[in-house]
């Protein structure tokens, strides 16, 4: 190794660093959740649009379900809406909508306007439950197994590709495990 090859090697290393950096730049702001493989946070929330009714984590035990954090102010939630609608049509698992930091009337209007893919919608108006789930963006989606453990989280708008590649295989695995 002479004095000419050292700068060349340094340059090549820098180029590799640049390429790797550019490759991950769009996923870099995503924070891995410490909640994966942990029990889903306990919650007991009013059902959106039916005052007096509440739903808790306990009542959902025994089945896999998606928890989708959304809000009427969230533009990306409209982007993922068709994918959720498609998933709902296939009737493979329960989809819980968690409407957070929103106004009840805005949320109901949003569902009437775009359609309601959710089995149940819960309203977390002050966002306290979203803090327990470590939600920092919208939409965010969690997959919870029948034992109430979070097995998967996706940050950003869901697409049918992601649902088919990541979520459905996990749900299928739960079905065979419980049988």
């Amino acid at each position, binding site marked *: 190794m002479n004095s000419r090859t050292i700068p060349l090697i340094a340059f090549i290393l820098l180029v590799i660093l640049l390429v790797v950096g550019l490759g991950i730049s769009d996923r870099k*702001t995503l*924070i*891995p*959740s*410490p*909640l994966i493989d942990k029990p889903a946070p306990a919650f007991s929330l009013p059902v959106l649009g039916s005052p007096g009714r509440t739903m808790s984590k306990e009542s959902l035990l025994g089945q896999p379900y998606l928890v989708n954090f959304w809000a009427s102010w969230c533009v990306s939630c409209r982007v993922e809406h068709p994918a959720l609608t498609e998933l709902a049509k296939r009737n493979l698992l329960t989809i819980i909508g968690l409407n957070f*930091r929103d106004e009840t009337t805005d949320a109901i209007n949003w569902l009437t306007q775009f359609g309601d893919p959710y089995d149940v919608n819960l309203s977390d108006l*002050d*966002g306290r439950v979203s*803090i*327990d*789930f*470590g939600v*920092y*963006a919208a939409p965010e989606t969690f997959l919870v197994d029948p034992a109430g453990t979070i097995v998967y989280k996706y940050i950003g708008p869901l697409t049918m590709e992601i649902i088919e590649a990541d979520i459905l295989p996990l749900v299928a695995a739960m079905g065979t495990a419980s049988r």
Partner: protein
Amino acid sequence: MKMYSLLTGLLLFSAIVFAQEPLVFENQQQQDRFDRLTQELRCLVCQNQNLADSDAPLAHDLRREVHKMLQSGQSNEQIKQFLVDRYGDFVLYRPPLQKNTYLLWLAPLILFLGGALVVGSSIKKRSALLDADQHSQKRD
């Protein structure tokens, strides 16, 4: 007309700003603790800002949570752990020393030692060259 709508907009905006209740502290000491804590915690929405500076709704809510925990007498460690449990170590501006951060913490030392090695060897080489040079000059 444009001016009028601008003014209306500003007025509406100021209403939103004033709608957020200011946090009340029991004493100066508690406020100092709050200030120090929120400066060390990262806002998850605008990730290059801390909780103290950020104006994101989440930062506002998390400041309120931190305030509530301070009021209920929790320690700084408990408050940080509350946030780490939900958002991960990323929320801390001062990452803890652990397996996946050894490289982060030790990199400056490694770079320093590597630099020292390079400088040391090149000084040695040069002084050897200089010595050889002087010898050959003497011989001439």
